[in-house]
C-alpha cells in the first residue's frame, strides 16, 4: 500500500511548488479583435473521394453522380447477358427515382465537378457530358437496390463508353438522398456492378467494384445578398477573414484564440454542421478565390443548429494565431529577398478561410454577419515569456 501511494505521488502533476516560480510569470492578457477585412466566394469544388454521394434536386441544389468501374479491357462485352448496378444508402427511409446515362468523355475523380472534368478542362456542358441514351431507370429505396441496365440494346460505342468513362446518375424526384461511395466505406456498401456473361458456353457472374465516383453539385438559388459572408458544402461557399494582430507581442504564447460568431442558417440537411478554419498561404488580395490555403484545416468545430438560433460557433484557432504571432511582418521587411533569413511567404498572416469540413459533407449553407454583435470576433488570451532567474 505504501509503495502504491509512493507511485501515485510520483506520477501526479499537482501544482506543488509552482508558487516558487510564479513571480517570474507575467500575467495573462486578453484582447478581442474584429476582422479588418472579410470576403466570401463560391466555387465548384471536386467532390470525388468522398464517403457519400448526393443525388437529387430541390429549390437550392441539384446533384448528379458520376461513377466509373474497373471493367477489364479483356472482357468480351458482347458476351454479357446481364448488367446490374448495386447501390446502398444510409437513410433507408428515403426514396429517389433516377435514370442513368453513359458518360461521353473521360473524367478524373480528383478534379471532377459540375463544371470541370479534371483540374484543367471543362465539360462540354455544365453538369457533365453524357450520351442521350438512358441505360437504366429505377427507384432507390430501402438500404440497397439492384438495377438492370438495358445492356443488350446498346451499340458497341455506348458499351465502350460505359466501360471507359462510366455512367451518370440523374435524379427525377425532388429531394436529395445520399448514397455510399466507394471511398471511406466498406466494400459491401460501395457501388458496384454485377455482370453476368457467357464464357465457353457457361454463364458466369462477376462483381466489379467502382473505380471512381463523385457528386456533381450545382446551386440553383443562394437566397443571399451579394455581400453576404457564406459558408457551405457541396458547392463550396467560403469566407475569408483577416485579423490584424500587430498589437500582440511576437514573443507572446497564445493560451487561447477562439474565433466566435453567430451564423444564420440558410440551408441545411443535418442538425450538426462541421466548419473548418484553414490558414491562407497566399494573400487573398489580389488572388481572390484562387488564393491557396492549407488543404487540411487548422481547426474544426461542430455547430449544432439550435432551435432558438442563439448558439455561437466557436473555433479554436490557437495554433494558427501562434504561427502568425511568431512570424510578424517585420521578418519580411527586415529581410528583403534574397536574404536567407527571410521566411517563406507562405508563413505570413494572410488571414484564414472558413469552409465546410469536409466540403462534401451533408449540404448546408450558413450566413455570417459582417457587422454587429454576431459578427466574427477573435478572442485572444496570451502570456508573455517568463522572466529571468536573476533580475
Amino acid at each position, binding site marked *: 500500500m505504501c509503495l502504491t501511494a509512493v507511485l501515485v505521488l510520483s506520477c501526479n502533476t499537482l501544482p506543488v511548488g509552482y508558487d516558487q516560480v*510564479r513571480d517570474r510569470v507575467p500575467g495573462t492578457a486578453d484582447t478581442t479583435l474584429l476582422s479588418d477585412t472579410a470576403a466570401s466566394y463560391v466555387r465548384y469544388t471536386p467532390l470525388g473521394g468522398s464517403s457519400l454521394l448526393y443525388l437529387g434536386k430541390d429549390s437550392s441544389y441539384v446533384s448528379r453522380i458520376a461513377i466509373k468501374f474497373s471493367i477489364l479491357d479483356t472482357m468480351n462485352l458482347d458476351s454479357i447477358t446481364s448488367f446490374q448496378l448495386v447501390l446502398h444508402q444510409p437513410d433507408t427511409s428515403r426514396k429517389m427515382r433516377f435514370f442513368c446515362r453513359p458518360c461521353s468523355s473521360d473524367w478524373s475523380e480528383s478534379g471532377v465537378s459540375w463544371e470541370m472534368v479534371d483540374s484543367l478542362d471543362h465539360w462540354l456542358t455544365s453538369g457533365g457530358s453524357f450520351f442521350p441514351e438512358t441505360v437504366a431507370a429505377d427507384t432507390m429505396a430501402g438500404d440497397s437496390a439492384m438495377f438492370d441496365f438495358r445492356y443488350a440494346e446498346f451499340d458497341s460505342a455506348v458499351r465502350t463508353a460505359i466501360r471507359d468513362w462510366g455512367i451518370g446518375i440523374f435524379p427525377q424526384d425532388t429531394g436529395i438522398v445520399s448514397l455510399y461511395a466507394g471511398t471511406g466505406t466498406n466494400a459491401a456498401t460501395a457501388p458496384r456492378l454485377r455482370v453476368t456473361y457467357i464464357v465457353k458456353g457457361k454463364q458466369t457472374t462477376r462483381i466489379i467494384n467502382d473505380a471512381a465516383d463523385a457528386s456533381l453539385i450545382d446551386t440553383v438559388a443562394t437566397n443571399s445578398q451579394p455581400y453576404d459572408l457564406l459558408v457551405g458544402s457541396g458547392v463550396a461557399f467560403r469566407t475569408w477573414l483577416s485579423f490584424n494582430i500587430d498589437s500582440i507581442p511576437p514573443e507572446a504564447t497564445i493560451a487561447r484564440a477562439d474565433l466566435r460568431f453567430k451564423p444564420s442558417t440558410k440551408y441545411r440537411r443535418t442538425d450538426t454542421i462541421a466548419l473548418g478554419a484553414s490558414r491562407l498561404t497566399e494573400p487573398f488580395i489580389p488572388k481572390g478565390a484562387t488564393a491557396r490555403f492549407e488543404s487540411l484545416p487548422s481547426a474544426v468545430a461542430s455547430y449544432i443548429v439550435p432551435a432558438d438560433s442563439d448558439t455561437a460557433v466557436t473555433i479554436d484557432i490557437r495554433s494558427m494565431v501562434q504561427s502568425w504571432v511568431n512570424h510578424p511582418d517585420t521578418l519580411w521587411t527586415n529581410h528583403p529577398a534574397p536574404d536567407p533569413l527571410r521566411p517563406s511567404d507562405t508563413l505570413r498572416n494572410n488571414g484564414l478561410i472558413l469552409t465546410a469540413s469536409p466540403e462534401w459533407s451533408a449540404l448546408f449553407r450558413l450566413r455570417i454577419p459582417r457587422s454587429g454583435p454576431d459578427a466574427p470576433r477573435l478572442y485572444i488570451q496570451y502570456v508573455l515569456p517568463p522572466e529571468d532567474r536573476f533580475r
Partner: protein
Amino acid sequence: MKTLQISDCRLQITSCLRSSVGILLSAFCILISAFSSSASAQSFFNSRGLGEITPAGEARIAGLAGPSALSTLNPGIFVGLDQTSFHVTVLGAAVLGTQYGNSRMLGEVRPAALNVATPLPFATRLFAGINQRFSQDFNVWSDSLADTAYRRHIVGRGGIYALRVGLAKSLFNKVCVGAEFDHVMGGSRENWQFETENSGVTSTDTIEVDYVGNTFKVGGSFQSRVFSLAAYYEPALGLNVRRYKRVHGVITDTTRYYDISLPQSYSVAAAVKPRGRIGFNAGLTVYPWQDATITSEGSRSGLGYRNVWRGSIGAEYDIDSLHPVRIGYSRQTWYYGSSYYARGQGSDAINENGIHVGTSVQIRQFGSLDISGELLIRDSHIYEGVAVPPEDNPGGLREYAGRLMLTLSYSEAWLKRTRRWGY
C-alpha cells in the same frame, strides 16, 4: 551484573543497527519508486537563487550530518595520506513536496563527486576533484490558466560545478594546511512548456544560463588520535553569467550578461574520540551572503540573499574494526527565501532539519563502500522569525527529502582501516 550490562549494550547496538538499516531500506524503497517517474528534481525550491547548496559528495561525511570542514572539501584535511586514494560518489534523491493539501514526489540519481588525492615527497599532497556546488534541478506544474485547458510545466536542469585542484602540506603528521584553485562552471536549462490535458506540448520557452568563475580556498586541520579540528575559508566567488532566451523555439532574445558576486564562506568542525570505538563531531558552516550582488549593464543590485549557517552534530561507533555505524543531525537555513506568493507578503525562510545515518562495507584488496541515508525536512513556515504551524499556513511549501549516497573509496594498498578524516 557485568554480563547484563554487556547484553544491554549489545541490545542497544542491535536496535541501533536495525533502525539504521530500516532507514536505509526505506530510503532505498522511496528512491526506487521515485525513479520510476519521469519527473526529476532535487528540490521544489531549486527554481530560486542559485539553487540548493549541494552537500559534500562523501557518504561517510553525509552519515555524520555533513561537517564539511572534515571532508575533502577542506584542502587542508590530508594529514596522514600515505597512499593514492580516490572517492567516487553516486547520489540518489527523492523529494516529497506538500502544499495546499497536494503532494508530489520527484526523484533523481546522478554522480555526485569524484575526488583523488596522492602523496608527494616532502609530506606534500596533490589532490583534485569535481564537485557540484549548486543544484538547479526542479520540476513544477502550474494551475490551469483561467478559461483554458493549458498548464505550464516548468522543468529546470543543471547546476554549478567546481573543478578543483590543490596542494597540501602535512606537518608533524598531525597538522595539514592546503590551498586549492577552483574553476567554477556550469549551466542550467529551463523549459517552460505549455501542455494540454493529453500531455501534448503546444509551445516551449527556453531559458539557458551559463556560469563561469574562478576562486580559491584555503584550509587546515589538526588531527590526533583523540581530537581533531578543521576549518576552511573561501573568499568571495564571482560568477560571470550569460543568459539566452528562446521563445517558442523561433525567436531568439538578445543575450544578457550578469556578474554575480557571492561573499565569502567558511566552515569549522571538531571531532573527538574519547574512547576506542566511539567518536563525536560537530560542524558549522557559515554563509554570510546578505550582501550578494548582481551587476547587469553596469547597474548593481542586491540579490536579497540571507546570512545563514548550517550546523551539524554526529557520532560514529565501530561495532568492530570493519563495521562502523554513523548517525547525525543537521539544521540549516537556506541562503534564499521561498516565494512570497505563498503568503501574499514578504519572503519566508526555508529551514531544513535532517537526520543522517551511515555505515561502511570493507572491500578486500580495494577499499570500502560508504553508504549514507538522509531524511531532510524543509519548510517555509517561518514568517518574520516566528514559526507558523503548517495548518495555519497551508500554502507554505514543505518538503520531505530522502537521499541515498554511495561512495566507493579506493586505497592503493588495502589495509585494515585506521581511517582518518578526509580519506
